[in-house]
């Protein structure tokens, strides 16, 4: 088993391969943010930050922070040339209106029908949905990027138990074990980390995985 940071970067690296030249992409806080470190130099990705801009750049150098340029997690960031600031209504015109090509975010639970739960554990942790409900409802492609399990518990379920973020919206689940696609027939394991067997992945997954003939090794 890889160390925590290695796992995160492994997942982020694989997610980055899903991004195409010119894509408008919204990366959630945490692991998804790492994806920006793995975008190939020969393509251009336009990062959307739901608090109000397009063209988000890398974190600023120490001492060069601009308090008026923060990401949706409240951290200092920068804006690339060609970037644009706008208000929250316009930000969600972009998001809800289907103008974000890919949104990458974490999950507490995700199920074989593409249902997603990532905003509350009743009575325990209720951070709120922020922009997540709009993002997964509006984005053309929804990628869940996360650890395959949480402290040994299943996160990829037959049916989500926690309050949903949205219904039938997830397209891909990318974990340290593999890449799964949500299809009308169920969850298809498209790629597998060669460190694991198909049985390992199935045991770590409550939903029944469909194993296609052309199952590939993950290329992260």
């Amino acid at each position, binding site marked *: 088993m890889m160390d925590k940071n290695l796992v995160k970067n492994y997942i982020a690296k694989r997610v980055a391969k899903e991004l195409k*030249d*010119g894509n*408008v992409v919204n990366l959630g806080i945490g692991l998804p943010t790492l994806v920006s470190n793995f975008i190939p130099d020969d393509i*251009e990705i*336009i990062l959307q930050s739901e608090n109000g*801009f*397009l*063209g988000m750049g890398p974190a600023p150098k120490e001492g060069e922070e601009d308090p008026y340029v923060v990401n949706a997690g409240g951290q200092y960031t920068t*804006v690339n*040339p*060609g*970037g*644009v*600031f*706008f208000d929250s209504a316009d930000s*969600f*015109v*972009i998001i*809800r*209106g*289907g*103008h974000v*090509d890919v949104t990458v975010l974490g999950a507490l639970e995700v199920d074989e029908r593409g249902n997603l739960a990532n905003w509350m554990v009743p009575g325990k942790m209720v951070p709120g949905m922020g922009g997540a409900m709009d993002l997964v*409802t*509006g984005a053309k492609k929804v990628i869940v990027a996360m650890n395959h399990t949480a402290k040994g518990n299943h996160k990829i379920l037959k049916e989500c138990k926690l309050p949903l973020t949205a219904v039938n919206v997830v397209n891909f689940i990318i974990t340290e074990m593999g890449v799964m696609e949500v299809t009308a027939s169920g969850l298809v394991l498209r790629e597998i980390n060669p460190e694991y067997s198909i049985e390992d992945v199935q045991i770590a997954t409550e939903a029944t995985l469909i194993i296609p003939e052309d199952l590939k090794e993950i290329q992260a």
Partner: protein
Amino acid sequence: MKEVVIVSAVRTPIGSFGEVSNLNKLISVDDAVNMINDGMSIMVGGFLGCKNPFKIVNALVEKGVKNITLIANDTSFPEVGIGKLIVNKQVKKLIASHIGTNKETGNQMNAGELDVELVPQGTLAERIRAAGAGLGGILTPTGIGTIVADGKKTIEVDGKEYLLEKPLRADVAIIVGAKVDKKGNIRYSKATRNFNPMMATAADIVIVEADEIVEVGELDPDDIMTPGIFVNYIVLGGNE
């Protein structure tokens, strides 16, 4: 009629028109009109000719594209901008708020040659915005109790009645920008802004006719009014 120039292979293929890439967005006016074919729905920015994308519209008139569904605030004047598309009988259906400045529009409507849907101006702007914003329509008090409400659903919210007006999209939006950078980021000027920002969000192909094209980075990120992600193509405008 001018000969139609075949779209060069360098251009993005048909299948990906809806996706805005960071490829070179600058195209010629010929390339632009070659994407616009008979029977398409076309939104055109401007308010009584202030200002339509004159260069592209004139090329559409020249090309003679037919059976257009035209979505615009008005039909300008007979000799100006989209007014010519009406005079030239290229429009099959018109969705607009005002047609009084172009008598030919009323003539064709009364003769049964042109199907006209009149929409209150605020409703028109908001319906286009709703389409771009992924909303299911708008709930407006405007038009309640008038023939504008005919055949439409009314919804009561907290004791007040609103008309449900549906989102409005088009195949192509042709808009104008004063300063446009090479990524398609647009800054409008003065009263020419009007419907352009909403139209940019609500069409499969968005073409901006620019007064001036500038390098990426020349526009302050606070000054850009339409982000380039909405814009597929840029045509350098001219003077009419």
